[in-house]
């Protein structure tokens, strides 16, 4: 209260705790978004188009063979006043390339790097193979002069404050599992943010975070689930932010899983090898109903594939005859025609009568939405003569069975897509299948399709964004019709913030984009706090004290009263 | 000194009432030692506890208990507390249970001093040493816990405690029952010596007539909540029950009891279902027909002796 100009503070609630303040080690989403605010990157998605735009790299050129990239690093300062040079970037990448421990956070981003060198403000990266996603590099550039002193990156917790960074904010405090406090970086090259302090506050209990938002303990919260989002309705001070999200939810179908040397693996149901069966399943899913009932209407039914409509450039949607709509009769007909006869119990068998069409549906434990999904799918599949049983697995087991050993029939899946979709597209490549020994992988489908492979290579080399998008859409179409995965819906990005605290915030992309859940620091750089007169903004601490004091007083009084009463009654009923 | 007038104690249980003491009248003069005998369940302890109103809440007490001319049963709470221990103190049967197991015995002896005499700590501990010496225990024993003492020593501590406030009356409820023969002799010797030295009145309770006869001037015998005989400890018993009780403890060397144990046929009465008439008649070897129907009160049967039997006196 001593400060004449009240600090402008915005508090953001999150339901995931920070895992590590060391960017080389951190893997959690929440940590990623905090890094975006503290550190500069080579590029940042443009706030309007989501296309890569200059960040620490002012400009860049690429050699004709696409193997050498030269970035010009901006003349700017670290938050401790040291100049930022290409050396910092080169050190960061080289560290990751040479030190296994430093790969934990963003290892794959440098896998294709052959060498990284610096010369003044010029950074040169040589690749092993051409890479279209080069401009979406997710690695924060670290200040060499601070970090080179760290002996063992793998054991360094980076809990030194204030942090030395080049982003709009500087971390000044982190309490484990509680909060991270960021202060505006006055030397930020785009200019100082409009607020003074940004607090990122962790909630273990989502319900409590909603309460916190309603009470004003926090000012903004992202990644809401539909029911929590609904419950913000009717609060005049809260803006419900509902836009298209980055995510696609789909089913992964074991259509005959193979290893990287094309040997069959796993115990998938043979019927699922038949694209007709997969299509029939696709017809038997009422995506609109799922959206309504499971996602509370806050999602878009997926008539496309794995890239959500948020990314307009790359989004593809089926239309015309190709489009599959919920039609149980049609699903039944397809199966009947393909020779899957219904038995007396209403369950179909394979044409050769060998096996019943009984599929397992693998989901995660502790995932209520998936549970609910399973219940609906079971209901519909039953109508078309297919039995679906639910199998709940913890996440490691799930990853193993659906990604390596292929011990599944149908599994839930989903992916949060980055502005550049290469990563998600890559998860359906032949090369991602596990080796015979069960290693490697990262496949999301065990898919291995020559058409898809060649399209992938094509888009990877294509540096013209428009043409590349066309190729990518063909890939999506392929996935849609061949149905190794069946997209269900694209969940909306649901957020909420208090308009009595936040005067302005620019989503990314600016037109109906995301706030917390977006990529890049834009929303938080553009944050404007409602300026309040008087000390009320800062009054939290003292009023808290007062309330606690009163509470303590009440307790003491109650106890005292109790004792007095007890004394008085004590004399009366002495025992004889 | 102490006068019981038609004292009665009834325990109210959920199902029924237990008339444990049914009209007991007794006098105890200053400096006198009175023995109260009777079998288990005859109401001896109930009498003792009623004297200081120590009975549990479920007990209903009738009659009067005059202690030094004051009716204990009508006393105000504060007065009663003052009377307890300073005028009359109690030594219980189970010395191991009568002492708080987690308190040093010195503190337990000193406690009534601090409560009633408002004694200072130093005075109290001095007195504790004196008391321990009186009962023949070394002073350092004050720092012992009850379990570190033998049964006889514990009983002596109880006695020391009872003497703490120099009461005029000590009630000793079966002070030696749980003790060994030799230890019992030690304790009895101590009690005899103390009452002789201090001129204290004693009400001593036991089921062993020979023990009582040894210490007391007069004896009272209870049966089923009633007094059946009161008289000097020397001399022949007149009530058949008292006689049977006396015979149950044979005299070693007495040829009459050699290879001829004697007892009463039948079972001790259940206070909840007392027989009509004289409560003793079902077991009485000399019962008359009238005994089954008409009850008998204590009647004089010679100088200083009274017995509740139709066959005595008159």
């Amino acid at each position, binding site marked *: 209260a001593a400060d004449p100009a009240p600090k402008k503070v915005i508090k953001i609630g999150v339901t995931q705790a920070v895992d590590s303040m060391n960017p080389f080690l951190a893997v959690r989403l929440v940590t990623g978004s905090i890094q975006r605010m503290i550190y500069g990157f080579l590029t940042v998605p443009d706030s309007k188009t989501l296309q890569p735009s200059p960040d620490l790299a002012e400009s860049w050129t690429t050699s004709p063979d696409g193997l050498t990239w030269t970035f010009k690093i901006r003349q700017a300062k670290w938050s401790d006043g040291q100049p930022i040079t290409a050396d910092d970037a080169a050190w960061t990448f080289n560290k990751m390339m040479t030190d296994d421990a430093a790969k934990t956070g963003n290892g794959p981003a440098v896998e294709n790097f052959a060498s990284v060198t610096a010369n003044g403000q010029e950074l040169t990266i040589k690749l092993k193979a051409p890479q279209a996603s080069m401009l979406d590099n997710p690695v924060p550039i670290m200040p060499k002069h601070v970090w080179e002193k760290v002996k063992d990156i793998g054991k360094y917790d980076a809990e030194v404050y204030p942090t030395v960074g080049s982003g709009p904010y500087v971390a000044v405090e982190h309490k484990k599992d509680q909060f991270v406090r960021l202060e505006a970086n006055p030397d930020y090259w785009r200019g100082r943010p409009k607020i003074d302090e940004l607090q990122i506050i962790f909630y273990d209990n989502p319900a409590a975070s909603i309460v916190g938002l309603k009470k004003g303990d926090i000012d903004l919260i992202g990644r809401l689930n539909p029911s929590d989002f609904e419950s913000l309705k009717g609060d005049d001070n809260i803006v419900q932010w509902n836009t298209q999200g980055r995510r696609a939810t789909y089913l992964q179908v074991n259509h005959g899983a193979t290893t990287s040397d094309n040997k069959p693996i796993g115990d998938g149901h043979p019927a699922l090898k038949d694209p007709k069966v997969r299509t029939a399943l696709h017809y038997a899913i009422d995506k609109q109903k799922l959206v309504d009932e499971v996602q509370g209407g806050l999602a878009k039914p997926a008539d496309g594939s794995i890239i959500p409509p948020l990314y307009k450039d790359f989004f593809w949607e089926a239309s015309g005859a190709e489009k599959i709509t919920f039609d149980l009769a049609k699903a039944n007909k397809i199966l009947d025609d393909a020779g899957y006869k219904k038995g007396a119990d209403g369950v179909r068998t394979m044409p050769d009568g060998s096996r019943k069409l009984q599929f397992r549906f693998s989901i995660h434990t502790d995932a209520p939405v998936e549970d609910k999904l399973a219940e609906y799918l079971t209901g519909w599949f039953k109508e078309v003569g297919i039995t679906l049983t639910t199998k709940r697995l913890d996440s490691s087991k799930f990853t193993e069975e659906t990604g390596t050993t292929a011990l599944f029939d149908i599994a839930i899946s989903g992916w949060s897509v980055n502005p550049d979709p290469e990563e998600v597209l890559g998860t359906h490549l032949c090369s991602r299948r596990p080796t015979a020994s069960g290693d490697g992988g990262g496949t999301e489908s065990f898919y291995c399709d020559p058409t898809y492979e060649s399209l992938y290579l094509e888009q990877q080399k294509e540096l013209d964004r428009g043409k590349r998008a066309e190729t990518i859409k063909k890939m999506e179409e392929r996935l849609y019709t061949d149905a190794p995965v069946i997209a269900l819906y694209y969940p909306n990005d649901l957020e909420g913030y208090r308009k009595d605290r936040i005067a302005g915030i620019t989503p990314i992309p600016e037109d109906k984009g995301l706030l917390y859940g977006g990529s890049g620091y834009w929303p938080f750089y553009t944050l404007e706090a409602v300026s309040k007169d008087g000390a009320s903004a800062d009054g939290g601490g003292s009023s808290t004290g007062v309330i606690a004091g009163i509470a303590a007083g009440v307790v003491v009084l109650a106890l005292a009263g109790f004792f007095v009463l007890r004394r008085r009654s004590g004399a009366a009923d002495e025992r004889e | 000194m102490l006068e019981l007038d038609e004292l009665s104690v009834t325990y109210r249980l959920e199902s029924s009432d237990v008339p444990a003491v049914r009209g007991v009248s007794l006098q105890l003069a200053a400096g006198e030692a009175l023995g109260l005998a009777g079998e288990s369940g005859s109401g001896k302890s109930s009498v003792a506890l009623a004297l200081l109103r120590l009975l549990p809440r479920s007990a209903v007490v009738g009659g009067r208990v005059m202690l030094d001319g004051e009716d204990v049963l009508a006393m105000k709470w504060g007065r009663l507390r003052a009377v307890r221990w300073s005028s009359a103190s109690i030594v219980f049967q189970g010395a191991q249970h009568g002492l708080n197991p987690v308190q040093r015995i010195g503190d337990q002896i000193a406690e009534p001093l601090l409560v009633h005499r408002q004694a200072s700590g130093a005075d109290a501990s001095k007195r504790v040493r004196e008391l321990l010496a009186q009962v023949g225990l070394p002073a350092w024993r004050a720092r012992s816990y009850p379990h570190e003492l033998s049964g006889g020593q514990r009983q002596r501590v109880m006695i020391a405690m009872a003497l703490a406030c120099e009461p005029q009356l000590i009630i000793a409820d079966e002070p030696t029952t749980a003790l060994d023969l*030799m230890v019992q002799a030690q304790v009895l010797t101590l009690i005899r010596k103390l009452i002789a030295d201090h001129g204290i009145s004693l009400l001593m309770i036991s089921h062993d007539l020979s023990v009582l006869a040894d210490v007391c001037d007069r004896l009272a015998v209870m049966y089923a909540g009633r007094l059946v005989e009161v008289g000097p400890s020397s001399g022949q018993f007149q009530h058949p029950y008292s006689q049977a*009780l006396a015979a149950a403890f044979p005299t*070693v060397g007495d040829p009459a009891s050699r290879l001829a144990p004697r007892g009463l046929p039948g079972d001790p009465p259940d206070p909840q279902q007392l027989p009509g008439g004289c409560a003793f008649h079902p077991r009485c070897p000399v019962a008359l027909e009238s005994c089954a129907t008409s009850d008998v009160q204590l009647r004089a049967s010679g100088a200083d002796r009274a017995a509740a039997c139709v066959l005595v006196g008159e």
Partner: protein
Amino acid sequence: MLEATDLHVEFSGRGGRRARAVDGVNLSVGAGEIVALVGESGCGKTTLARTLLGLERPTSGQISYDGTPLSYSGRALRAFRREVQLVLQDPMGSLNPRHTVYEAVAEGPRIHRLPDEEAVVADALARAGLRPPERFFQRFPHELSGGQRQRVVIAGALALDPKVLIADEPVASLDASVRGEILSLLLRLRDDLGLSALVVTHDLGLAWNIADRVAVMYLGRIVESGPTEDVLKDPQHPYTQALLSVLPESPNRIVLTGEPPDPTRIPTGCRFHPRCQLVAAGKGTEACTTQPLQVLPATTAPQVSCHVADLVGRDRK
């Protein structure tokens, strides 16, 4: 019938010290004989009784029954226990509160698979003086008086037709007026069935009441034994003398000082010497404090184990 020879029983007490509860005992119970074992609390009476029944294994020495040494195999023990039976001090505790009188008495016959259970039970109850037996079959222990309970326990033992009864303080917890009845029962059983009995007690009066022979125990040893009249009317051992002197009716008391001794620390020499009134009065000899005494043999003749009284005893003969 039942004989113990040089019996020793030790317990490892707390703190690793060994308690020599029974420390060299020779004792025999003849056919149709009632022997009383007396002594103060903790001197090892119960331990001796339990060992005689095979409930406790002796550290050394042996038990023999009818001349054959007791074997501790399950089968032999079971056979032995048909012949030798136990009656305990606390009749309430000796009866399982959840078993009826019938079940309590039938337990033995069931264990030994005797035929005609019901008749056996009825007969045993009748012999123990609970008549008519059928009236008691369905009663629970808490519905009986103390004397009746003790009769049930005795009936339970009689149901097996034993030859020897070991009674550990059989009347200590009973009302004075009832105890005479139980003792009479024991005498009658001896007369009618020829039962032998070892009665363990601390009550000299009881011994006088029913015993043919008395053995006085002190700190794990029998210090004096012999026919009841001899021992109780003319005690030789200073300890027996003291015990008898503190009976209320006796004129001049010898109250021993000190607490009952501790079987983990048995004094050297005569084990009684620290409390002995003769030693205290200076009438003891050198041997009292230094020289251990012989274990008394299992004879029926009067005998005493004392350095001083030995002389007296021999004189008397």
